[in-house]
C-alpha cells in the first residue's frame, strides 16, 4: 500500500521536478560555468579564464560601493518594514480599548487593513511610476507642490529626492528616499501576515495579562512579540531577499540607473551594466554567482540564529 503511494507521488512529481531542473537549476549551473569565462554575451565564443572574474570582483571599486548600498538596504528594509508592520498589526488587532467583548483593534481597523494592504496589490513598476509623480522635483510634484505652497520649501530649490546624492546620516539621500518606497510597499503585506499570527494567539493569554495589570506596552513586548517570533523570523528572511534585490526601484526611480553619479548603485545595477552595456557577461555571471552565494549564506545564518523551541498553544 505504502509503496503504491510512493510510486504515485513520484510519478506525479516527475514532470515538475524535470521542469524545475531544466529551467531553474540548469541556468544556475550555466551561469556558474559562464562566470569562469570571458563570454561577451552575443556570440558562442568564449575563453576559460578560471577564477579571474572573481579576483577582479574583489578589487572592483564600483562593486564595493554597490555592496555597501545593498548592506544598507539589508539592514534598514527589514528593520523598518517589520517595525512598522508590527506596530500597525498591533493597533489593528489588540491595540483598541479592552472591554466586555474582549481584546480588539482600534476603531475602523477593518478599513485600515484594506488601505494598508493596498500597495501589495500593485506591481512594483506601477508603484515606481506612482512615486515618480509623488517625488517629482518641481512644483507639479505631490510633495514638492504641497510644501512649496505652504512655504516649507523654496520654489527655487525644491527637494530633489532620488536625484539627490548629498549624504544624510552618512548615506546618500537617494537611498533614504528609495527606502521609504520599499517600506511603504512592503509594510502592508507583513501587517496582514502579523495580524493573522496575532489572531491565532488565544485571547485568554491577553485577558490573563490584563488581569495581572499589564498595559499595552507590556502586552506587546511580553506577550505578542515572543509569540510572533517565528513569523517575524520568516518575514525577516524574505525582506532580506527584497533588500538584496531592490533592482526595479533603482532602475525606474534613479537617474542613469544607479545614479546620480553612482550614489544609488547596487549589486544588480552594476551587474546589469556590466552584462548589457559593457558586454562582459562572464564577469557579470561571476557577480550573479557571488550574490547568490551571499543570499543563501545569509538565509542560513538567519535561520540558524533564530532557531528556538516552538511554543504550542
Amino acid at each position, binding site marked *: 500500500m505504502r509503496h503504491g503511494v510512493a510510486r504515485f507521488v513520484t510519478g506525479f512529481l516527475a514532470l515538475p521536478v524535470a521542469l524545475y531542473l531544466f529551467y531553474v537549476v540548469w541556468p544556475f549551473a550555466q551561469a556558474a560555468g559562464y562566470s569562469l569565462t570571458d563570454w561577451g554575451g552575443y556570440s558562442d565564443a568564449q575563453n576559460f579564464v578560471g577564477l579571474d572574474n572573481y579576483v577582479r570582483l574583489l578589487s572592483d571599486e564600483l562593486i564595493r560601493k554597490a555592496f555597501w548600498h545593498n548592506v544598507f538596504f539589508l539592514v534598514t528594509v527589514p528593520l523598518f518594514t517589520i517595525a512598522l508592520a508590527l506596530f500597525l498589526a498591533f493597533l489593528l488587532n489588540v491595540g483598541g480599548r479592552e472591554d466586555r467583548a474582549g481584546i480588539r483593534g482600534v476603531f475602523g481597523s477593518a478599513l485600515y487593513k484594506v488601505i494598508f494592504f493596498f500597495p501589495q496589490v500593485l506591481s512594483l513598476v506601477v508603484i515606481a511610476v506612482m512615486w515618480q509623480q509623488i517625488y517629482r522635483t518641481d512644483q507639479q510634484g505631490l510633495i514638492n507642490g504641497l510644501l512649496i505652497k505652504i512655504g516649507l520649501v523654496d520654489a527655487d530649490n525644491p527637494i530633489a529626492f532620488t536625484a539627490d546624492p548629498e549624504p544624510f546620516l552618512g548615506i546618500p539621500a537617494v537611498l533614504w528616499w528609495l527606502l521609504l518606497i520599499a517600506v511603504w510597499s512592503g509594510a502592508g503585506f507583513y501587517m496582514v501576515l502579523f495580524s493573522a499570527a496575532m489572531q491565532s494567539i488565544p485571547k485568554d493569554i491577553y485577558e490573563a495579562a490584563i488581569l495581572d495589570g499589564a498595559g499595552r506596552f507590556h502586552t506587546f513586548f511580553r506577550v505578542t512579540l515572543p509569540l510572533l517570533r517565528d513569523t517575524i523570523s520568516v518575514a525577516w528572511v524574505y525582506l532580506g531577499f*527584497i533588500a538584496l534585490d531592490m533592482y526595479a526601484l533603482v532602475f525606474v526611480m534613479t537617474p542613469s540607473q544607479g545614479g546620480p553619479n553612482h550614489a544609488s548603485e547596487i549589486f544588480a545595477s552594476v551587474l546589469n551594466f556590466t552584462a548589457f552595456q559593457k*558586454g562582459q557577461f562572464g564577469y557579470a555571471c561571476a557577480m550573479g554567482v557571488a550574490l547568490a552565494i551571499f543570499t543563501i549564506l545569509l538565509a542560513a545564518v538567519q535561520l540558524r540564529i533564530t532557531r528556538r523551541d516552538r511554543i504550542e498553544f
Partner: protein
Amino acid sequence: MSVTPENLGDLSRRTLLQRAAAAGLLAAPAMGLLSACAGSEPEKSDTGGAAKSKDNPFGVKDGSAVKVVIFNGGLGDQWAKEDKVIFSAKHPNVTVNMSSTQKIKTEEQPKMATQPSDLVMNSGADMMDRSTLINEGAIEPLDDLLTAPAWDSEGTVADSLLPGTVGDGTQNGKFYVVNVAYTVWGNWYNAALFKKEGWQAPTTWDEFFALAPKIKAKGMAPYVHDAVHGYYPRWALMASIWKTAGKQVVVDIDNLKEGAWKADGVLKALEPWEKLVKDKLLLPGKLDHTQSQQAWLDGKAAFIQVGTWLKNEMSATIPPGFELTLSDYWHNADDKAPKDVFAASGEGFVVPSKAPNKEAAKEFLRAILSKAGSAKFAELTKSLASTKGSGDNVQDTALSSANSLMKNGGSELISVKFQDFYADLDKESQNLSEELMAGRLTAQQFVDKMQAAADKVAKDSSIKKQTRTA
C-alpha cells in the same frame, strides 16, 4: 522517503523554508539575473541566394522569408510599414514578417548567437551595445550595401546618403550600422514668443548672458535641461568643446590620447556652462526629458537643447501658435570652429551574422534608403531621413529651421564617438555631465574627473580599444 500523514506536522514554515533554501529557491533575487546570463548552443543557418542583377544586387531568393524587427519609439513604426509596401512591390514573392517592439535588447539579444531576426533596428533605451556586437562578431559588415546601386536613383546607395552617415555606421574600418534617421541638435526656442517680446535669438554666449536677465524679468527661466538622462547635457557640453577647442581635440578625446581633456579650449568651452548654473539661469527641479520639454512648451523656460525628434515626440502637447525653432549651440567670439553643426545619423539597423536571410535583409535596407521610402519617413516622423532630399517636400517650422541650420553650417559636422566606443566612459561622462549641470562640479573638476576616467579605460586591458581617424 515520502511524506505521510503521520509526520506531516513536521512540515512547519521553518522546515519548509529550510528545504526550499536547500533547493536554491531562496536565491530568488539572483535567479532572474543569473538566468539572464544563460545562453544556448548555436544552430547552422542556411544561406545561398538567387542570381544577382542590378535590380537584385544581393540575389534575394524568391519564396524566401525575411524577418524585420522595428523599434517602435519616438518615431513610431508607420514609416516602416510604408517601406514594406515599397519592398513588396519589387519582390512580391518574398514574405516580409515585420514586428515592432520597444524592447530590442530583451527580445533580440538572446537570439543573436542562435537564430536571430534578419534585420534589427537596434535603437531606443533598450538597445544592444554596438561595440560588443561588433567585437563579438555578432553583426555583419554591410560594405557591399554601400556599393550596391541605389533603389530608385542614380549612383550607389552610398551616394544617396547624407554626410556623416557612412562614418557614423563604421567601426574598425568596416560599415556595420545603417542609420536611417538624421538628427540635428541645438537650442530650441519659441519664435512666436521671441517676436512678441522683441528678443533676438542669441548666437554667442555673450548674447545669451545679456538676454538672460530680460527673460528672467518675464518670470521665465532662461534654460531648462534633462537632469535625469546624462546624455542630454553631454551633447551640449561636447558640442561646446568641439566649437571652442576644435575638431582635433575631440578626436584626441575619442582616441583616449593622454591629456586630451586638458587640451587648450576644453576648460574654456565648459566655463560658460558653469556660469549658467552658478547664475541660477536654470529652471529649478531635476526634470527628465519629457518633463523638461513640457516645461519648455508651457513657457516656463526660454531655451532647451535637444535633437530634431523633439517635435514628433511632443506633438500631442504643443500649444497652438507655438513656433518650435532650432538654433545652433551658442559659441564664444574666438572659438576655433564656431559654425560647425552637431548633426548625425541615428536609429541604426543591423544585420546579425547568423541571420538566415541576409540577402533579403540588405535588400530591405535598400528599400528603406530609397527616395520614396525616405520621403515617407520625413513626412510621417517630421524628422529628416539619412537619405539626401528626404525633407524637401515637408512643410514644417521645426524641420525647416533644422534644414537652414544645416545649410549655414561650417565645413564639418560635430561628431563624438567615445560614448559608442567605451561603455564605462559613456556612463562616467553622463554622470559627470549631470554633476556639472547640478552645480556639484566646477568645470575644472569635470575636466579632471573625465581625464581620470579616460585614463582608467586606456589602462584597462579587458576593454578593446577603438580609434577614429576623421
